[in-house]
């Protein structure tokens, strides 16, 4: 019965063949210390290190981890290590370090206790037991992590394509008014024409009006002079519009036509 339950436990932890020897699956780790020599390397590789090997030996012998029989475990462990050495396997340093730790614990247990009491702090096994328990938890957690549903194996992310009418939004860069002003200043200075371009607010509004007038005069159609003036703008507006028109005429961009004396004046953009 004991064998059976142990068998089950091993199978749950290791559902896959433990190792292949001469093409045959070995379904569990070796029953006792006897290991077929050609399997040793494979078996050694199946352990994640000395703690894993120790855990295996402890579980195998059904020892209570909290009451670790260091002498027996050390003997078994050392026999494995000796076997590895005999076979000239490249033995990871970690296994030798663990052997040294076990030997030290064993020798300290042989020394007479300095005082009475069962103080765990004085038990040379305490640190090893703590490490074994911690490693066992890590090992268990890694197995649980492996069982979690995961992408690529258990779940696949569902996605739809965005319709092709969807164009990515482009966020335009911000421009500060100062940047604009400084850019103008820089351009004018570079042109060495700074002193020839006295830009005043009046001229600017005239220039703005020039653009507006041209914009209204699309094509070569004539528009009545009066259409460019509105009472709401007041006297200043009238002056700006008039100055803009004069400027446009001066720059040969505008034709002013008066058919009769005192007749309506018509305006159009000049064409060649």
């Amino acid at each position, binding site marked *: 019965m004991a064998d059976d339950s142990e068998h089950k436990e091993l199978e749950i932890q290791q559902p896959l063949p433990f190792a292949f020897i001469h093409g045959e699956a070995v379904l569990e780790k070796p029953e006792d210390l006897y290991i077929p020599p050609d399997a040793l390397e494979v078996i050694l590789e199946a352990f994640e290190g000395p703690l894993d090997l120790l855990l295996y030996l402890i579980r195998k012998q059904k020892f209570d981890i909290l009451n670790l029989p260091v002498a027996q475990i050390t003997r078994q462990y050392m026999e494995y290590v000796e076997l590895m050495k005999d076979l000239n396997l490249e033995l990871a340093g970690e296994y030798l370090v663990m052997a040294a730790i076990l030997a030290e614990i064993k020798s300290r247990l042989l020394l007479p206790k300095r005082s009475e009491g069962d103080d765990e702090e004085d038990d040379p096994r305490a640190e090893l037991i703590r490490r074994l328990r911690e490693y066992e938890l890590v090992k268990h957690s890694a197995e649980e992590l492996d069982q979690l549903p995961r992408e690529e194996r258990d779940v696949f992310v569902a996605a739809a394509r965005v319709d092709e009418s969807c*164009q990515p939004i482009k966020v335009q860069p911000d421009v500060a008014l100062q*940047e604009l002003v*400084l850019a103008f200043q820089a351009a004018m200075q570079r042109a060495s024409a700074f002193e020839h371009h006295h830009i005043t*607010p009046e001229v*600017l*509004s005239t220039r703005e009006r*020039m653009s507006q007038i041209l*914009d209204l005069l699309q094509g070569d159609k004539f528009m009545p002079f009066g259409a460019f003036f509105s009472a709401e703008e007041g006297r200043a507006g009238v002056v700006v519009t008039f100055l803009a028109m004069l400027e446009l005429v001066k720059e040969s961009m505008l034709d002013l036509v008066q058919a009769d004396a005192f007749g309506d004046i018509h305006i159009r953009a000049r064409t060649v």
Partner: protein
Amino acid sequence: MARINKDQLKQLVEAAIFVADSPLDDTALMEGVLANWTVSKKQLADCLKELELDYRPRGVQLVKVASGYRFQSNPALSPFLARLWQEQLPRYSRAMLETLALIAYRQPITRGEIEQVRGVSVSSHIVKTLTERGWIKVVGHKEVPGRPSLYGTTKGFLDYFSLRSLAELPSMDAFAQLANSTNSVETAEGLPPQNVKVH
């Protein structure tokens, strides 16, 4: 081969089309995810028809394209979904800012006139970018050989800079002050001069 019921078939076909990297056609479905089941062409066609109907009122829809079936978003949602791929465009170059400034201060102005002041040619890209942003537009043509376009700023330009009219653009008098405070302005805006790239 095992039988599969209608609901299971629908689930499997639906999931397959959703998770596949590219559209799946009848053959891909039959020989792929349905390979272990007995499914007739008619059953598959009915299943796809039902899925198409199921998704018609939803945000994504089953469509058939050249290489098979795929789910894609309802076209009506495109303007909103666009926000998922928002892209920050790089800051404007010095050439761009100077061109804009010259158009603002010296409008109506031709490209040739801007080039005269700047001493270098103005790339079509700059004019295009500023036009697309809705800041400048062609307001007329200068009656000289070639009838070059005359550029001016738009109402959108004034709105962006919170100006009621161009008259509110800082005047030359203000330049001197600005020039004095240039360093502090640049620092405050986190704009070391090398950030203003010349293309």
